[in-house]
């Protein structure tokens, strides 16, 4: 596999997780979570700390990433989101509160980076995490492990939402919070769990992305437009759409830029971020509800119907 393709796949897997995190939180709590940027960076920082201080492979630190990501989610929920939700705050207020939380997290990340620099003489401000990986069938192992992990997370989430009692309650709250509350579902717990899942997904996504791009204390801030682009492309109303949107945006950024630069010259490289955002805008113009709004079933049915009609 060409190196750019392998990196694109890894990056897209991470972006898909973060876009899924944004979508999940939006559909449950109406909150556009800007803190996803720093939550993603925390994922990278946790793995970097682990491999630098204790050795081993990045993957063995993913359970810690999930736990710390979940903790950042819980803190944001109890500290900001819950009080605002109970006061029926507007969406803009909810969104801006997460921006404030993001800035606090960013400051803490910067302080922690200084601590690593001055105490352990480490260099957390510019890290190429892929050098901690190992080779599998001549490719970097992350090329296989990370997309599979992303799919596994999605499958677990799907089963959680469709097969468990709490998951079904969660979906009921998403569909109609008032009715769910009246039927005895504890919406507070639903919101809390969504913050836990969302925080974990964002942190895990960040640790994935750092395997393809340079890990820095501001990597989340740099990539947050693309995380939101993925969520918006997915339609914002469907978590699977969000994950798919993130995957499409990530792959477009890598593959699209490479092919365009090969075709039209390296000046295209300067517009790397613009290309996936253009794809997002173009898709939304055709399908205003994003990828999840594409009537795939209908299209397939029509296609097969037409074929049958043609052969008849």
């Amino acid at each position, binding site marked *: 596999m*060409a*190196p*750019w393709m392998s*990196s*694109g796949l890894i*990056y897209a897997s991470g972006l898909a997780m973060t876009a899924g995190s944004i979508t999940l939180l939006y559909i449950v709590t109406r909150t556009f979570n800007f803190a996803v940027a720093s939550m993603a960076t925390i994922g990278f920082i946790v793995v970097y700390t682990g491999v630098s201080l204790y050795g081993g492979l990045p993957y063995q630190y993913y359970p810690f990433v999930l736990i710390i990501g979940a903790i950042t989610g819980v803190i944001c929920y109890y500290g900001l989101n819950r009080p605002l939700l109970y006061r029926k705050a507007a969406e803009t207020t909810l969104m801006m509160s997460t921006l404030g939380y993001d800035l606090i997290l960013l400051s803490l990340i*910067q302080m922690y980076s200084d601590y690593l*620099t*001055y105490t352990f*003489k*480490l*260099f957390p*401000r*510019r*890290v*190429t995490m*892929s*050098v901690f990986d190992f080779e599998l069938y001549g490719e970097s192992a992350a090329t296989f492990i990370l997309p599979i992990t992303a799919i596994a997370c999605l499958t677990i989430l799907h089963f959680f939402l469709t097969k468990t009692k709490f998951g079904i309650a969660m979906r009921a709250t998403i569909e109609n919070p008032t009715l769910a509350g009246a039927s005895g579902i504890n919406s507070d717990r639903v919101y809390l769990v969504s913050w836990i899942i969302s925080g974990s997904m964002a942190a895990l996504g960040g640790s994935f992305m750092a395997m*393809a*791009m*340079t890990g*820095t*204390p*501001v*990597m989340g801030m*740099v990539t947050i437009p693309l995380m939101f682009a993925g969520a918006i492309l997915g339609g914002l109303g469907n978590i699977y759409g969000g994950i798919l949107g993130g995957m499409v945006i990530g792959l477009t950024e*890598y593959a699209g*830029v*490479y092919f365009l*630069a*090969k075709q039209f*010259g*390296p*000046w295209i*490289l*300067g517009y*790397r971020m613009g290309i996936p955002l253009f794809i997002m805008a173009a898709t939304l113009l055709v399908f205003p509800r994003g990828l999840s709004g594409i009537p795939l079933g209908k299209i397939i049915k029509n296609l097969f119907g037409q074929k049958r009609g043609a052969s008849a």
Partner: protein
Amino acid sequence: MKSKLFVLLLIGIMALAFVAGCGGTGDGDADGVTTHTIVGILPLTGVLSTFGENSAEVAKLAADDVNAWLEAEGKDWTLRLEIDDDATEGPVGLTKMQSWFGEGVQIFVGPQASGVAQEMLAFANANQILYISPSSTSPALAIADDWLFRFCTDDNIQGPAIGALIKEAGIEHVIFGWQGDTWGDGLQGAAEASALELGVEVNSNKLRFDPMKDAFTSEAALLDGYVTEAVASGVALDKIGFNIITFEQVVPFMVEASKYPQLSQIKWIGSDGTAFSEALLQTPEAAQFALDVKFANTMNKPEDGSANYARVKDHVQELLGRETDAYSYNTYDMVWALALCIDQVGYDSAAVKEILPEVVKEWSKDNAASGYIELNESGDRAFANYNIVMLESLDGWFVPGFFDGLTGEITWETPVY
């Protein structure tokens, strides 16, 4: 009653904050001793963070030394140094300068990046704010009578050093890759002009990339394609060179490039942005690649024998556990030069600007960490030699030779090509 108490408490806190704020940034008197504030706006984060951390520590060292000298001399003022982060981003740097200027600060140390220095220029010129950069090398900022001074030479002097290095490495066909900002564009232009002048063929495909970029998969793949085309046109692989002009992004670039076997067989040339890169040493895969391709960089040459050279070098080694960069020696001299000027004419940016060239010229003869400093009509260091900096092993850099700015020749103490 409770609300009245709360309001009184609030007023009390605000009054306290107001009083504290008034005496916050300097020019305050305490026991007959005046405090003058200078602010170091440095890249503590972003792509120049290694340089920023070095310079911040060196600036603090210089401020301590200045204050020790002031005390020993029985002077009636002390120097207060504040460090602020510009994140290696122009708008951030400008906002920080505006904010400190609002608090009465007129004299600044930094920024390090040309892009940031340029962003600040109009505001500084309009408000008579004096600022000195230790490392902004863009020729576009060589402007006479502006309020930006630079204790480094501009890239019209470094460009020929890179050109000479390309020639010395035996490169006949060079491909350029650089970050597209004021610094990168200026240095690449100067290096390309010099290479052409020395008879080196320049590839028509050029990799100009976003300075904020963090992933280089496409660039490495494209570079591999350009090398393949050059070989197909009859150029031997070992006669092909790649000049990368960037900062710490060289690490992910090299990690990506290491996935293409022929890219480790061409010669790689860097610049002052990558010399002594700690980020490179921290990433063994990239360091191994740099060793394999004999990655050679040019870097402003401080005078080894100068009085404070060893002091700065040892201080950073002890505190951060690494070799400091050449520009941090300039930072040490900047703080001293400003302090000496303030000592002579007081905290007045216009008066300091007037005497700075003469003061630094005199003082640097015996005391400067970076060697003798003479400023030209643009307020930039007039001339300098350049060290050639290469990796000696996976753990450290060494200086096998230097480029003489006057003769345009490279002298090798340890031949490497």
